[in-house]
């Protein structure tokens, strides 16, 4: 179990994360959804101890997280947003180094590298230098590396960002496999579909503060399951309704172009913060 208690990060006068309280249960696939600059990456960096917290606490299995507490750090796997693989080494060598610094015995290390490369469909490229990999392959290899030492909690910071549509689909397939495996996952994303498809619960974060927290379904229900978009004079307005009938009745009285569609997490976020998650 991962618990964040009043977690805060300040850079001078700027508060990047403000008293974040969150509990992620074992086996849960949890999404932290918000626009760029909302504080998602800072939160992941604090949990993984790269960025020191200003105040608050990070508790993993009843123990406070600390950079020098190796017994706790071994329980997490981290996939950062930016590629941090050694580009002058092959995929296999990158995983080998990871296994060594996580003190995995030789036999287990070799066995796990084979398994994880098959799992991520990278086995055929195991002897290629990482510098020759595409962005999507690098991202997959980073996930493989984070899974190498069999962590209890996986932190995924925007794993699909910067990937084209085809690679994003492949990434989601991989993330679905992780979800099915029962691993505890904290995923940060600004892709609405990613959060809706994968996450058991979603925390909406804006300006470093948690705005709302629930399952994607419940969040949408809270706002209204149907959205009426009305385009008049170049301006779009949105209204939310609990049933299609209500939406249709409202739309029939409108001028201009009208669109009725099921609501999504973007609508929830927009209604709660007056701000979009994914820039249009």
């Amino acid at each position, binding site marked *: 179990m991962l618990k964040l208690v009043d977690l805060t990060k300040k850079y001078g006068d700027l508060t990047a994360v403000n008293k974040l309280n969150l509990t992620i249960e074992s086996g849960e696939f949890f999404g932290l959804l918000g626009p760029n600059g909302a504080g998602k990456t800072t939160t992941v960096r604090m949990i*993984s*101890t790269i960025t020191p917290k200003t105040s608050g606490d990070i508790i993993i299995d009843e123990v406070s997280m600390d950079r020098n507490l*190796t017994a706790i750090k*071994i329980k997490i796997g981290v996939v950062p947003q930016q590629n941090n*693989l*050694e580009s002058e*080494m092959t995929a296999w*060598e990158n995983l080998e180094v990871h296994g060594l*610094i*996580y003190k995995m015995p030789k036999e287990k290390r070799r066995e796990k590298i084979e398994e994880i490369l098959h799992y991520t469909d990278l086995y055929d490229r195991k002897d290629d230098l990482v510098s020759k990999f595409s962005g999507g392959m690098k991202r997959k290899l980073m996930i493989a590396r984070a899974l190498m030492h069999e962590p209890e909690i996986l932190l995924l910071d925007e794993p699909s960002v910067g990937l084209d549509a085809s690679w994003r689909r492949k990434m989601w397939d991989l993330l679905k496999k992780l979800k099915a495996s029962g691993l505890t996952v904290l995923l940060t994303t600004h892709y609405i579909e990613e959060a809706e498809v994968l996450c058991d619960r979603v925390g909406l974060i804006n300006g470093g503060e948690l705005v709302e927290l629930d399952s994607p379904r419940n969040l949408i229900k809270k706002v209204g399951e149907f959205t009426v978009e009305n385009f008049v004079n170049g301006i779009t307005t949105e209204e939310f309704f609990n049933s299609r009938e209500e939406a249709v009745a409202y739309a029939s009285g409108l001028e201009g172009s009208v669109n009725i569609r099921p609501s999504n997490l973007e609508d929830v976020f927009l209604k709660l913060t007056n701000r979009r998650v994914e820039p249009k």
Partner: protein
Amino acid sequence: MILYGILWQEFIIFKRKFWSTTIGAMVSPILYLIAFGWGLGSNLKMEGTSYMQFVIPGIIALNTMITSFNNTANSINISRLYYKTFEEYMVAPINMRTYAIGKIVSGAFYGIYSAMLIVLIVMIFGGGLHITPYFILIAILNCFLFSAGGFIAGLKINSHADMAKFSNFIITPMSFLCGTFFSIEKMPVGIKYFINILPLTHTSQGLRAIGESLEMMALHFAVLAVYFVVLLIMGIRLCKNIE
């Protein structure tokens, strides 16, 4: 196993860049030997010996300093600010002390390797060099000392441009002041005291220590060892609190 992992990674990268590293490490010493040894110094005598014999230990001191310092500083700097590979170690369940030792050892290795290349070049061109166990000890200590210095520089700087500050204000002055190319005996007293505090002075003098008293040899070793220990402790402390 963790230390082995860090060193193994460095070894793989060294293997991949073997020729560029080797040729790169030979350029400066060859130029120094040509310019200061065969060129400028062909008719000079220094401290009762030929200038060539005088300057070779200085070139080894200078080159091991620059190679060890730059390799560690650049490696840390680039892995922190550009490739972000430093973060993989921050996240890993390792003590940052182990990381610091691994990086300092691998940086020192590059310095030792460059010293071996210079010795090889000198032997090929018949420059005349007396290698004793004390000579080897001082050369290795110099590599570790400046690798530890490079480790601190790599952690301290926040842009590649900042690297020039360390080079301009620490490395370059030491390169020319610390008895690498000339004897410091004729220096004014005040400057001589200052130069004697600097570690590279003791490396240069230690590498030329044939005929020196045991006390002086012990002093050179002690000064370098103290510098190394202090820089190592500073580097480890800095590494534990780095963001």
